[in-house]
């Protein structure tokens, strides 16, 4: 089978496996870690659009998850709007907040504006902590369970896992569609050469802001899903350190490949937990791993595996070809 088709079948099988996971392994610990990994992965896909396509780096995406989570919590507390109602609103507020973070990137041409996104996390944590009753102050806010919808009870861990998986697959699909679309090409053009992009009529400021807001919406979605799973959120969840690990994960996995962000989430969030690797060792591993990946495999782990796969497939075809030649006595 040609590379293209076998790739399609492999990813279909892999996705089928993800869907079937709850029935294969009913261990709650495994599903719980998978849910946490899934929510973070959704944010990574948002960052993949921002960095992978538009080339804009942000070390502040945990704060955007926080904006989504707190919007949902406050909407529930103040207006009694449940999970499904809060979802679109939280994504919108997170997108607007991302636009706010993105503004400096328009004025500061160098990439050192990225420090502002890191500063934004700390600022958000301080505002939430001192927010008094509005934000539940330092002790944070509680959330009620998602409850039932169309007869499906989302309080069961298995159903919640499927909900998060659906959101993750939607995020992956959206990222893939964006990458293939004209909009994605325009973002890549801005990344490659902003001056030329402007010269051919692209409103680069608007598009960069758009990319930020799009990635904010992904983070908002992830924030709401995480908040409704933990059922209690506090400012400390969304500070600088979590944002650092989010940025690292997307770099490790690869920001421009479909399975890159998912691989990053699995490497940083999933494997150390499931295999109960000591957190100090696991962080040393992917700290050093990131350095190696950037130096040796700039496209990230998955891109390199894909290259490796393609190289191996080509090698196989060549040797097979040679064998048939030998067999035919040439």
């Amino acid at each position, binding site marked *: 089978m040609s590379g293209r088709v076998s790739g399609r079948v492999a990813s279909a*099988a892999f996705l*089928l*496996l993800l869907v*079937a*996971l709850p029935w*294969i*392994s*009913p*261990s*709650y*610990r*495994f*599903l*719980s*870690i998978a849910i*946490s990994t899934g929510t973070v992965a959704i944010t990574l896909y948002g960052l993949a659009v921002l960095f992978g396509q538009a080339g804009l780096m942000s070390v502040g995406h945990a704060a955007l998850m926080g904006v989504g989570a707190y919007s949902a919590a406050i909407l529930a507390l103040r207006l009694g709007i449940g999970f499904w109602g809060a979802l679109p609103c939280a994504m919108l507020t997170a997108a607007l907040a991302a636009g706010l973070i993105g503004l400096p990137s328009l004025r500061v041409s160098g990439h050192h504006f990225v420090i502002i996104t890191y500063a934004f996390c700390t600022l958000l944590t*301080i505002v939430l*902590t*001192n927010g008094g009753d509005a934000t539940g*102050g*330092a*002790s*944070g806010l*509680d959330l009620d*369970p998602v409850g039932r919808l169309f007869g499906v009870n989302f*309080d069961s*861990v298995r159903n919640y896992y499927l909900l998060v998986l659906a959101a993750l697959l939607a995020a992956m699909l959206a990222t893939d569609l964006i990458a293939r679309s004209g909009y994605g090409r325009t973002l890549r053009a801005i990344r490659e050469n902003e001056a030329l992009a402007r010269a051919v009529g692209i409103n680069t400021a608007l598009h960069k802001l758009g990319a930020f807001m799009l990635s904010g919406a992904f983070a908002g979605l992830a924030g709401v899903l995480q908040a409704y*799973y*933990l*059922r*209690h*959120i*506090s400012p*400390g*969840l969304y500070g600088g350190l979590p944002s650092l690990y989010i940025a690292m994960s997307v770099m490790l996995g690869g920001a421009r490949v479909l399975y890159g962000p998912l691989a990053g989430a699995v490497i940083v*969030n999933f494997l150390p*937990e*499931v*295999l*109960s690797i*000591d*957190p*100090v060792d696991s962080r040393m591993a992917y700290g050093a791993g990131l350095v190696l990946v950037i130096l040796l495999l700039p496209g990230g782990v998955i891109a390199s595996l894909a290259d490796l796969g393609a190289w191996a497939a080509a090698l196989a075809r060549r040797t097979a070809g040679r064998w048939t030649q030998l067999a035919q006595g040439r």
Partner: protein
Amino acid sequence: MRQAFAAAALAAALSAFGASGGHAEDVIKIGVVAAESGSFVSAGNTIPAAERLATKEINDAGGVKIGGKTYKIQLEVRDDRTSIDTAIAAARELVNDVGVQAIFGTESHDFSIAMTKITGPAKVLQFTGNSTLGQFLTKEAVARGGANHYVFQTEPQEFQRSGSTAKGVLALLTPLMAQPPKHSVVFVANDVAGRYLSSHYVRALEANGQKVDLVYYPPDTQDFTALLTRIKGMKPDIVHFWYNGDETLVAHPQAVQLDVAPAYFLFGVDPGVWRERKLTSGAPLTLSCVPMCWGAPPTKAAAAYFDRYFGMGATKGVQSSVSLLYYDYLHWYVKALEAVGRLDDPDAVVDWLLKSKYQGVVSAAPLVFNDRHQVTFATEVCLVKPNTSGQFKCAVEEPPAAPPPGDPGN
């Protein structure tokens, strides 16, 4: 064909870390969720250490006799790695996969509250030592059918702890001061524990006749000189440092350098640490610990406990005494199981606990849960003899019966 193959392969791989195999003989599984790694490790590792000691004692004494059979306690300890995601995953595993009867933990407020959402519906009893839990243990929440019916707070209501601490501090410091102290400044971290504790402690000091100012500092501050100079400008008689021992040991020396106040109180610093680090203070200074100090245990029982506790290899740290918030309650819980005589009736166990008393190590008086699933016991305050590192005069003040004016009493 593809699905079958994938399913079989994965099942084999996953069973390795899925549910752990059951044991042949009868056991009662008890869960512990605490930080054994990450930044909360200094408080977290005291919980499993305390429960391992209690489990060893119970099993050595012949285990638990229920319905004619003898059970051994099987402790299932999970490290929450100072991350809420891991704490939730651990709680899910203990409740749903392992099937524990009760869970002890966690060291941090957010994790414990998130865990109540899992233990509650599963009717698994949860013993937690965060006094900030008080906000959530309202009468309706702890009533039968309420969200927190199976949650027990193993620390006294904050107005009681603050009340006995305030009385102890003032009683010990006043004789050593030139004139009786009138003006106190409470200097506390701006986080959930800091805000909650200080709101009660300020009322307690006011109830003892003090004019009180409250100053917050951002968590993880290192250079306190600016805030301490501001406090010096308020001309305080006593500066009360709350609540994290490590941060207090950074801030206090800077206060002494600036000569901020004639007397100090350091909450959360154990005399044992003061002696070990050979610290001294010219100004009159009092220390207190949650709930008792391992450096100067007030009762023989407490001293014996700490010998056994450190004997098990636990590290001597600033927060070692936090273990006392968990040790007695495993013993008490086992007695409840034996009294109820069944393992499948958590409601009966809750009712028995609310009706019973237990003479533990943590308090001279027997422990009793009030109608909001909170215990009451006094707090130990120790005066450091000026310019010495190892001589303490400790006192245990009884907590006030009712909350002082302006204190919600939770």
